[in-house]
């Protein structure tokens, strides 16, 4: 951690603020009993992730994250939550059950294991990143990659989105209820 100039300190400060906002809002998502507050915490999480993506020079992905994820997907979530009302369970109601304790232990064990594996396998190799040029995360680069190397992923994504849209329309239509009774 070589604080060579003011720019470097600024990057570290922004990183610390964004990372802690990310982690704090992540914990808030699973802790609130009202799902509306959980959804709002997730929006905060997505915004701080966008800041982290900007620090990693992925500008198009950061803008797409805010535009698509935080701007459209979460609006859908908030619609459904406002429509269905806020009667959700309190996570620790009735004292922590054995199930909950084992879940926490299992998650913590997996977390430690992943960090240990990453540390052992990569050693010190993750400390140095190659310098990237100006066009690294730019829309032109992403577009070119999508249309040349990853054309199949591009086409399949469009089909997946179409299927989801059709599925959403079918699930939301009223005639299913009367047909089933």
């Amino acid at each position: 951690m070589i604080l060579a100039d003011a720019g470097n300190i600024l990057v570290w400060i922004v990183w610390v603020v964004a990372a802690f906002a990310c982690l704090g809002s992540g914990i808030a998502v699973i802790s609130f009993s009202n799902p509306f507050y959980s959804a709002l915490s997730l929006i905060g999480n997505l915004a701080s992730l966008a800041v982290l993506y900007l620090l990693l020079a992925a500008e198009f992905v950061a803008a797409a994250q805010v535009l698509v994820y935080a701007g459209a997907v979460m609006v859908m979530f908030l619609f459904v939550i406002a429509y269905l009302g806020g009667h959700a369970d309190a996570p620790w109601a009735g004292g922590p059950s054995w199930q909950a304790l084992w879940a926490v232990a299992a998650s913590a064990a997996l977390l430690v294991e992943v960090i240990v594996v990453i540390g052992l396998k990569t050693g010190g190799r993750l400390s140095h990143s190659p310098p990237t040029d100006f066009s690294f995360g730019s829309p032109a680069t992403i577009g070119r990659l999508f249309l040349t190397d990853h054309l199949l992923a591009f086409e399949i994504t469009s089909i997946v989105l179409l299927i989801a849209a059709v599925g959403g329309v079918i699930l939301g239509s009223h005639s299913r209820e009367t047909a089933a009774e």
Partner: protein
Amino acid sequence: MTEVWWVSLIKAFVIINLLMLTFAYMTLIERKVLARMQLRYGPNRAGPFGLLQPIADLVKLIRKEAFFPASAVDVLYITAPVLSCFTALAAFSVIPFGPGWTIGDYYVSGEVVNVSISLILLFALGSLGIYGFIVGGWASDSKYSLLGSMRTCAQMVSYEVSLTFAVLGVVLMGRSLSLVDIVHKQDETFWFFGPQFVGLLIFFVAGVAETNRPPFDLPEADTELVAGYHTEYSGMRFGLFQMGEYVNMITLSALAVTLFFGGWYGPWAPLGPLWFALKLFAVIFIFLWLRATLPRLRYDQLMRLGWKVLLPLATVNAVVTAALVVAL
């Protein structure tokens, strides 16, 4: 040549103040234009020609009792108008209003910030502004507010899709997502309102719907759902919602000028910001003109227009533009 950081800061401060001044006098201009179209004078009591009317309105709003519903969620209720106003003001930061100038030793660029993704940054901030309305309506804990805010947000989300598609044609012709590059491209070739006429039309209709302006203002019309998402707001909090709405309108007009009408380039003399301001006020006048003349659309008509008319048209426009750009 890059800008020193404190020059950007000063420029941002100046731009925000100019924006807020424009918003204040936009309220007066709107009332005057509406009045003249309805064959009456507008406000002309406060000051000569009513020029002090915005000041009077501001003082009235500040002095009004800002009531607080007892069952409202406090933090969300207070931050909702702040969020919608913040995103509206921040979205103006990427709009170029002039070529760069060199003043003394320092370079001052023609926009507050220039990034390679400035167009989607603007749309992203617009999407974030929707949350101000959703959260404000929900946090007011009132059925009128909730219903009105749900309608408003459904409308805004629907027309946002058509808005982005309409702009796709301009991006294809301008070869870049950066607004500065698009403006320069229009100087090199031709202003995009010619070849992209369909795109301009779709952009305009979707823009009017996106900013909740008449004839698409059903969710906040007084005779419909009381006042929609700002039913339970009064005083300066309501003023912040209004500021968000008007500044959204100004930003959208500025975007239309940048994308379709050549930005700050003029037919003859190189007076960058002056041409930009002229074109901006011309587009804003069209917004006001629509308010004075057209009746309101019903909600189902509104949604049908957005999804069944504008979206297919915008898609066809994008496809045809792509084909022509590749072919020519």
